[in-house]
């Protein structure tokens, strides 16, 4: 375990966070608000990171273990320090509440403990939505993009942070891959801001909503979320962009390379689109009677499906009052999530495809014990390791959910509330059903439950392994 290199990397990450905090500071300045919360946080971050960076390690080699630990610790530290502005400003006076809110931001969950959102300082609300954008693509990927060649082993950092069952680079150099990913990310965000401006949204609202959509987060600046705008055009724009940010970013890179064939033939994209369309259709049929106009029904159904699948968590309707079929369908979609390599959470479509296919191949094997079966994705045979990892992921994921539901049930809420609260946190969505539905929030939970749910969100965003390794004693051994 190369502790000094981990410390150095953490220092760099905290320095980056300090730099990113300049943006809300500028927003606060523009609106004539107090900039003390940001200045204090920046100062604290600078001190700690400089201390860590000064001890520049002589041995720069890191391995998978260091990669996982760096990623996990950096996310926890970022959230811990990112919560400071909320506390100092007084928006969320309790530190644990603020920590929950920040973790929810960075992990692009969007679960909130704030009951009153409107009327808070612009700078604070900007920071809250900006954490989504930072967390969406990942701050380590950002670090890889801006820091010139850190050597070959940085792949371990990317592997630990970018979600999905199969991960790789787009181009030979790590740094170029990270630059391309961020380029696509920024480009799409800007397009969305422009589209929302065309829908008549104010500049500030367009920016914060676009940031929250891009990270597939779901923090809104209105109490009623997107419904508060009563702007059907903006709802369509946001719904479409939620869908787009749920697509694997590699496919956008293929479009840039004019490899349209690869995009069209992508199994994951096809399943994602099909699932999205079929679910929308089913919900439209199921909830038709609740709407006066068909167009409202289609828009609302599509919005809920994309918001849940892309694990964003914006809302335009309280689906708590919908029929049980639609609610159940939404819960299932929560688990499925969107494509690997996007900013979304959940199990990921490709992993679900692998799981289903491997299950079928096992069944085949039972029927014909000597048959040789392979699992293919996009025409390529998957290694046993990939399939095994997907299975292990599912097992750990299920265990985590069960244990968390049990732990937070101490607070005395109903099973529907507790289960969907955990699902929504692990899958980085935001709202669940029952008390934590689109109209409610997480404020009612005890501090212990809030910490458990925060950890759940981190587990979900980093796809279990980095966090699990953090808790495994063998990872901390010196050699």
């Amino acid at each position, binding site marked *: 375990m190369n502790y000094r290199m981990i410390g150095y990397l953490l220092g760099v990450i905290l320095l980056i966070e300090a730099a990113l905090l300049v943006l809300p500071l500028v927003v606060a300045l523009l609106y004539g608000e107090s900039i003390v919360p940001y200045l204090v946080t920046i100062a604290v971050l600078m001190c700690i990171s400089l201390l860590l960076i000064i001890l520049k390690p002589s041995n720069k080699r890191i*391995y*998978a273990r260091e990669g996982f630990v760096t990623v996990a610790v950096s996310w926890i530290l970022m959230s811990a320090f990112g919560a400071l502005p909320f506390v100092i400003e007084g928006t969320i006076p309790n530190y644990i509440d603020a920590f929950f809110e920040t973790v929810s931001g960075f992990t692009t969950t969007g679960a909130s403990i704030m009951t009153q959102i409107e009327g808070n300082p612009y700078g604070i609300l900007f920071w809250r939505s900006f954490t989504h954008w930072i967390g969406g693509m990942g701050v380590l990927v950002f670090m890889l993009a801006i820091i010139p*060649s850190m*050597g*070959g*082993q*940085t*792949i*371990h950092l990317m592997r630990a942070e970018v979600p999905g069952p199969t991960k*790789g*680079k787009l*181009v*030979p*150099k*790590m740094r*170029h891959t990270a630059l391309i990913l961020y380029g696509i990310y920024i480009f799409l965000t800007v397009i969305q801001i422009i589209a929302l401006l065309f829908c008549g949204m104010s500049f500030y609202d367009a920016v914060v909503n676009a940031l929250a959509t891009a990270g597939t987060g779901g923090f809104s600046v209105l109490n009623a979320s997107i419904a508060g705008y009563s702007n059907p055009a903006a709802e369509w724009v946001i719904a479409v962009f939620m869908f787009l940010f749920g697509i694997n970013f590699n496919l956008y890179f293929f479009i840039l390379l004019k490899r349209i064939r690869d995009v069209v033939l992508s199994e994951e994209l096809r399943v994602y689109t099909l699932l999205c369309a079929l679910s929308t259709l089913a919900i439209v049929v199921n909830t038709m009677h609740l709407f006066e106009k068909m167009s409202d029904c289609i828009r609302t159904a599509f919005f809920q499906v994309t918001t849940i699948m892309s694990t964003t968590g914006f809302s335009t309707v309280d689906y708590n009052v919908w029929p049980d079929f639609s609610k159940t369908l939404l819960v299932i979609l929560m688990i499925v999530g969107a494509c690997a390599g996007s900013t979304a959470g959940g199990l990921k479509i490709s992993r679900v495809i692998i799981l289903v296919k491997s299950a079928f191949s096992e069944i085949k094997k039972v029927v014909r014990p000597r048959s040789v079966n392979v699992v293919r994705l996009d025409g390529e045979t998957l*290694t046993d390791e990939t399939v095994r990892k997907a299975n292990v992921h599912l097992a750990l994921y299920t265990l985590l959910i069960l244990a968390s539901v049990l732990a937070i049930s101490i607070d005395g809420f109903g099973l529907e509330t507790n289960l969907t609260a955990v699902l929504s946190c692990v899958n980085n969505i935001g709202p669940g059903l029952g008390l934590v539905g689109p109209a409610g929030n997480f404020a009612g939970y005890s501090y212990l439950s809030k910490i458990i749910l925060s950890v759940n969100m981190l587990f979900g965003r980093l796809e279990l392994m980095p966090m699990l390794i953090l808790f495994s004693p063998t990872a901390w051994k010196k050699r």
Partner: protein
Amino acid sequence: MNIVIVGGGTVGGAICAQLAGENHDITVVDSDFSVLNELSSRCDVFGVAGNGADISVLRKAGAEKADLLIAVTSGDEINILCCAAAKKLGTTHTIARVRNPEYTDLMQLMKGEMNLSLTINPERAVANEVYKMLRSPYATKIDYFCRGRVELAEFTVSADSPMCNITLNELRNKLNMRFLVCAVLRDGVAHIPTGYFSLEEGDVVSVTAPDRDITRFFKAVGIYKHPVKDVVIVGGGRTTYYLEDLLRDSKINSTVIEADESLCDELAKEFDCTVLCDDGTSQDVLLEQGIGNADAFIALSDVDEENAIVSMYAKTQNTKKVITMISSMSYIDLFKGVGLDSIVSPKTSTASIILRYVRSMANVRGSEIESLHKIMDEQIEVLEFTVKEEIEDMTGIPIKELKLREGVLIACIVHDNKITIPSGADIISDGDTVIIVTSVGKIKGLKEILK
């Protein structure tokens, strides 16, 4: 540069790590998934799984836009095929490792059609290396420039050497001959010495001198060894075959000890050497051949451990020069540690030839450099330029009046085929070939050596 490496074995892996560190965009193709996994987590490269001779795999690896493709899989045929395919797809340069001697003539014949920029035969490369060592037994390493006409010899200064604790100017007066100390490696740091530089024990120095003077120089500083006239070679495989081929025109007598009868037959038929069909690892056999009195002992069998052990034995018999072939790269440092200093290896030779080619290609692109070598732990660059036009402030001016940059040395001027180690009065003129030694790096044109 965009480089595709086909085959991620020992050689592929070694050049991969080196080149990725030198900021090239590397894509590795290998059919073994775990090899790719291991490589891409060790260095910043992109892995593509599949057969390197499969067009779709090559396309995926970006052969269409690659500047260079290096094929180093274990199969000669795959390497050749792969290079031909890549060339067709649009790769600018291709390098193939071709080991089978039966293909040598074919490669010569087809080089044009195949558009191969370079083919490497690892065993032949090793034989060349051994031959170079035999030709100049006094140096630990030798580099050649100007198509072999200028040599740069590297050796370590010992405590009793007349070079010790004396400035280079004094040394030159004392020896009264033309030579040039181009670079000194002291405690891991390379220096380009001035006349006031004083050498110490343990310094590794790189020296150049005109042909006739280099022998005199080594005699004068007391490390001269008589030219090798009599060698004992253990092992009669391919490397020995190539080495004998090189020794054919030299005055060196060789004795080959090989246990395999058919190999012995082949060698005896082809070459004029003494061939013994016997066990080369046997102490009696070695003593009978008088290895203690041989000028050099070379262990070239296929088994690394055998080579190492017989070499250690030869050392105990005070053989003047012992050369050991070690194939497994992980053994090399191990055996260096137990006192075997002249180790050759097919894999390191192959890798270093490829690296040299890629480096000179990368450096030569957009510059006037004819060739480039890196010496002294790769800290010093030796560049070869041809003067193509009159250069202001340089041509026709005595060297002592040139305003050279810090860390730049003019090591050699070849004027009308005559090699000169320049003194202050010599001049560079149009049409000359000039060798520059520099620690600056990034020199692309002759003009840049001036302040």
